[in-house]
C-alpha cells in the first residue's frame, strides 16, 4: 500500500569526485510501500546515488535520511533496515540454497528458529523445497534471481534496493520476478529498483530519470508519458537522454 | 614482426601503467638482499660456545685462539667432562660445544686424523648449520696454514663448501640463492599472472580468435619480463658487491648468460602454470607454493642437500634452481670458467627445452 510517509528523504544531495559532479543537487522522496523506478543512462550517476542511500558512501553535501536514519552518522542502522540485491552479486555459488539463506539470516542476527521457520516458508512458496541442498551454481539463472530477491527481503527490511535485478532473465521468469516485487510491496516493503528494460519502468508507481547527474523527470509513468507526449516509457527515456549523452 | 612489435608495446604499457607492481619488482631484490645479508651477519656474531679440551696441547690452544679471535664465537665455559654437555644445552645459552680428543697434536701432525667433535644446538637449524660451516672453515684454514710450514700430511679434512669463502660471510652463500629465488618469483609468477589476467578479462578470447599464433601471444607476453628479470640480476649483483663486498670472481658475461638461461627456464614454468588454470589467484598460489617454496627448501639455498633423506635428495636433483645455484656459486665465488660448469648448464638446458616444449604443447589454440 503506497503511503505519503517519506521513507527515503533526499534534499540537495551532491556528490563530487574531484572536479566531477556525479550527483548534482538531487531532491526526491520515496514513500513507504512504493515501487520506485530509478532510471538513467550509463554513467548518469545512478550507482553513485544508490551507494549513498545504502550507506556505502558518504555524500559531499545534502540532507539525506533513509528509513529515518541519517546517512552521515547512522549508516549501521541504515544497513540493518535495508535489503540489497544486484544482478552481479547475489548468492554464493558454491553454497547450497539453504546455506545461503542461513548465512544471510545469520548476518542480520535472526535466531536459528526464526531462520528455519522463514526458510521453510520461503522454499515452499518458491517451490524449491526439494532442492534446498542443491548448490546455487546448479540452478537456472531465473531461479537464482528469484531466490536472491527472497533472500534480500528475508530479514523483512523496510526498503529493498534492486540493481538491475532482471538483466538477462527470460520473459516468463522476468514477469514472475515482478509479481514477487508486487507481493513484497503489498507486504509493506518499499522497493527501489533500477532497470534497463523500459517496459519494467511502467510497473513502477513512480519513476525518476537521471541525466548527467541531475534528476530530469520524476512522476508516475502515466504522468511522464503525458508530460513528454510519448506513447511508451521507452520514448520518454529516449527523448530525455538522447541529446545528453554523457561519457 | 610488426604484429609482434605492437604486442610488445601493449605489454610495456601494461607494465608502466601499473607502477606499484613495477616498483615492487625492482625494489624487492634489494630489500631481500639487505634483509638476508644483515640478518645473517648479525645472527652469528659472538655465538656462545663451550670447549672441552681433552688434550690441552699447543695445537688445541692455537685452534681455540683462532676460533675466539674470528669474531663469530665467544667462549662461555671451559668444560671438564662430557657429562656437562647435556645440561649445558638444556640451559639453552650455549650454541655450540667443541670437543678436542686426547693426544690431539700428535695425531694431527703424525697420523693426520685428529678428531674434533662439533656439537650444536639443533633447535635452531639455520644457526647451527652456519656455525658448523664456520667452525669447519676455521679448522681448514688452520690446516692450510700449518701445511705451509710443515711437510707433513694435512691433519683435518676441510669443509669444501666454505673453503673458498675466505671472509666467512654468510651473505656470500645467500646471494646465489636469492638470485635463484627472485628470478623464479619474477619470471614464473609474473608471466603466469599476466597470461591468466587476459583470460579473466575475456581479452584472451579475442587474441585467440585473431590470426596470432599461440607462440606469438606467449612470446609477446613474456618478453618484457625477460628484460625486467635481467635488470634484477644486475641490481642484485651490484648491491651485493657494493654493500656486502661479494665478489664476482669469474666471468661476468658467463654469469649473465647462465642467468638468462635460468630466466627462460622460469618463464616456461610460468607459461606452463598459466595453461592449467584460468584464474590469477590460482596461478599465484601455484607459483608460490609449487615453485617458490621448493626453490627455498630444496635447492640447497638454505638447507644443504647432502643432509636430506634420500627421497628428498632425488627430488632436489629435479629442481632447476639447484643446478643454477651450483653454477653461479662456482662462477661467482670460485671464479671458474665454463669448462667447470658445462655439465650443470647442460642439465639446465635440457630442463628448459623440456618445459618450453611442454608449455607450447599445452598452450591451447582454443578455450578448451
Amino acid at each position, binding site marked *: 500500500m503506497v503511503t505519503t510517509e517519506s521513507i527515503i528523504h533526499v534534499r540537495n544531495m551532491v556528490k563530487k569526485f574531484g572536479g566531477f559532479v556525479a550527483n548534482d543537487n538531487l531532491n526526491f522522496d520515496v514513500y513507504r510501500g512504493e515501487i520506485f523506478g530509478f532510471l538513467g543512462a550509463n554513467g548518469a550517476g545512478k550507482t553513485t546515488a544508490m551507494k549513498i542511500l545504502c550507506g556505502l558512501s558518504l555524500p559531499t553535501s545534502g540532507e539525506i535520511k533513509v528509513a529515518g536514519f541519517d546517512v552521515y552518522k547512522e549508516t549501521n542502522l541504515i544497513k540493518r533496515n535495508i535489503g540489497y540485491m544486484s544482478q552481479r552479486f547475489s548468492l554464493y555459488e558454491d553454497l547450497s540454497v539453504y546455506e545461503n539463506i542461513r548465512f544471510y539470516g545469520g548476518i542480520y542476527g535472526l535466531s536459528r528458529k526464526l531462520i528455519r521457520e522463514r526458510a521453510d516458508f520461503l522454499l515452499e512458496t518458491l517451490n524449491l523445497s526439494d532442492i534446498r541442498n542443491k548448490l546455487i551454481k546448479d540452478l537456472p539463472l531465473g531461479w537464482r534471481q528469484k531466490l536472491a530477491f527472497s533472500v534480500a527481503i528475508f530479514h523483512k527490511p523496510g526498503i529493498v534496493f534492486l540493481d538491475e535485478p532482471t538483466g538477462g532473465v527470460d520473459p516468463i521468469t522476468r514477469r514472475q520476478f515482478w509479481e514477487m516485487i508486487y507481493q513484497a510491496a503489498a507486504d509493506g516493503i518499499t522497493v527501489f529498483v533500477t532497470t534497463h528494460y523500459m517496459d519494467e519502468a511502467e510497473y513502477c508507481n513512480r519513476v525518476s530519470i537521471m541525466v548527467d547527474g541531475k534528476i530530469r523527470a520524476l512522476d508516475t509513468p*502515466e504522468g511522464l508519458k503525458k508530460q513528454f507526449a510519448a506513447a511508451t516509457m521507452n520514448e520518454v527515456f529516449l527523448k530525455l537522454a538522447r541529446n545528453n549523452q554523457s561519457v | 614482426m610488426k604484429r609482434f612489435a605492437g604486442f610488445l608495446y601493449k605489454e610495456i604499457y601494461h607494465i608502466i601503467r601499473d607502477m606499484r607492481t613495477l616498483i615492487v619488482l625492482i625494489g624487492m631484490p634489494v630489500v631481500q638482499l639487505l634483509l638476508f645479508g644483515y640478518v645473517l651477519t648479525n645472527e652469528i656474531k659472538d655465538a656462545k660456545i663451550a670447549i672441552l679440551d681433552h688434550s690441552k696441547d699447543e695445537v688445541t690452544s692455537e685452534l681455540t685462539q683462532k676460533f675466539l679471535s674470528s669474531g663469530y664465537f665467544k667462549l662461555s665455559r671451559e668444560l671438564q667432562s662430557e657429562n656437562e654437555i647435556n645440561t649445558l644445552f638444556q640451559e639453552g645459552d650455549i650454541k655450540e660445544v667443541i670437543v678436542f680428543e686426547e693426544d690431539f697434536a700428535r695425531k694431527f701432525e703424525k697420523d693426520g686424523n685428529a678428531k674434533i667433535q662439533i656439537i650444536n644446538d639443533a633447535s635452531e637449524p639455520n644457526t647451527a648449520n652456519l656455525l658448523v660451516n664456520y667452525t669447519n672453515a676455521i679448522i681448514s684454514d688452520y690446516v692450510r696454514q700449518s701445511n705451509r710450514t710443515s711437510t707433513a700430511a694435512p691433519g683435518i679434512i676441510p669443509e669444501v663448501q666454505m673453503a673458498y669463502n675466505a671472509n666467512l660471510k654468510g651473505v656470500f652463500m645467500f646471494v646465489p640463492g636469492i638470485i635463484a629465488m627472485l628470478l623464479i618469483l619474477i619470471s614464473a609468477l609474473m608471466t603466469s599472472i599476466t597470461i591468466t589476467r587476459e583470460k579473466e578479462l575475456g581479452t584472451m578470447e579475442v*587474441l585467440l580468435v*585473431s*590470426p596470432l599464433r599461440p607462440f606469438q601471444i606467449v612470446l609477446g607476453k613474456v618478453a618484457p619480463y625477460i628484460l625486467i628479470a635481467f635488470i634484477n640480476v644486475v641490481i642484485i649483483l651490484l648491491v651485493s658487491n657494493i654493500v656486502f663486498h661479494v665478489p664476482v670472481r669469474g666471468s661476468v658475461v658467463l654469469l649473465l648468460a647462465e642467468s638468462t638461461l635460468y630466466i627462460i627456464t622460469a618463464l616456461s614454468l610460468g607459461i606452463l602454470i598459466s595453461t592449467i588454470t584460468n584464474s590469477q589467484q590460482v596461478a599465484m598460489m601455484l607459483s608460490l607454493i609449487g615453485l617458490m617454496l621448493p626453490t627455498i627448501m630444496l635447492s640447497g639455498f638454505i638447507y644443504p642437500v647432502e643432509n636430506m633423506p634420500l627421497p628428498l635428495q632425488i627430488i632436489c636433483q629435479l629442481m632447476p634452481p639447484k643446478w643454477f645455484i651450483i653454477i653461479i656459486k662456482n662462477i661467482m665465488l670460485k671464479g671458474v670458467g665454463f669448462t667447470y660448469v658445462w655439465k650443470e648448464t647442460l642439465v639446465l638446458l635440457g630442463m628448459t627445452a623440456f618445459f618450453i616444449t611442454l608449455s607450447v604443447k599445452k598452450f591451447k589454440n582454443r578455450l578448451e
Partner: protein
Amino acid sequence: MEKNAVIAENLSKSFKKVNAVKSVSFGIGKGELFGFIGPDGAGKSTLFRMLVTLLLPDEGKASISGLDVVSDFRKVRNILGYMPGKFSLYQDLTVEQNLNFYATIFGTTVKENYHLIKDIYVQIEPFKNRLAGNLSGGMKQKLALSCALIHKPEVLVLDEPTTGVDAVSRKEFWEMLGRLKHEGITILVSTPYMDEAILCDRVALIQDGSILRIDKPDEITKSFGKPVFAVKSDRTHDLILDLKSFRGVEAANLFGNQVHVVMNNSDVDAGQITTFLKEKGQTSLDVREIEAGIEDCFIDLMINKS
C-alpha cells in the same frame, strides 16, 4: 539471398552436466543481420564460441564463408570479427592504444580501414587519450565494436553487445549495425532483449540450448495464429488474476502498464472481455485487439515447448 556466409548443421556441445547447445542448425546469408534472441543461459555464448573457433563442437559442423570452423580454423580467424560478452578491452590502455593494438595484431592499421569505423569512432575520438577503464558502458561498447571491426572482417560476431547498456546507447548501437550491414558485412548478434528482434533481418529464438524458431521477425509475429488483446485498467495486479479466470484465456502477461491476453479461440471479442472485467469490479478499462509481438511469441513458444 545466398545462405552461405555462416552455416551450422546439428551443432551440439555439452559441459560436464549441462547440454549447452542441442543440435542447432541454421544458414545465414551474406550481408544479413541475424539475431539470436534468448535469455542468459540459453546457450548463445557457447554457440558463438563454436562459430568463432574457440570451442570444438561435440557433434555437427559449421562453416564461415565456406571454411570449416574446425579444420580451417586459422583461415576463419582471419575473416572474423568477434566481440565477446565481456567487452574485451584493456582497461589500462587508452582508447587509441586499444584500437591500435587490435589493428596491429590483425596485421592492418587504423588508417587503412578508418572509413569502416568512422561513424562510430568519431563519437569517442574526443576521448582517445582516456583509459578504456574510465569510459561509460555505452562508450566501451562503441570502442569494442570499433576494435572488432578494424580489420574489415567478412563476418562480425557480437555476443550480447547491448547487455547492461542503457536504452539510448542500445538504440544508437543498432543504428550502427544497420549501417555496417550496407557495407556487406554479415552480422551475428545475440541479445536477451526481445524488443531488439525487430531490428534484425532474421532471428533465431533460442532457449535451453535449442532454437525454438527461425524467421523474419514480422513473419514470426504474423504467424502467431491466436488472438491477443491488450488490456488496461487502474488495478493492473488484480487484472492479471481476473483475466486468468476468464474462459478461453491461455496466458495473461504484463507488458508495461498493460496485460496481454492470449486466447485459445477466436470467438471472443474485446466487448466480451470488457463486460467480464466490469463484473469483476475493474474500472477505467481499455481493451483492444492487437498483433502479437516477439515477446508474446517467445513466451508462447516457451510454454508450448515444456
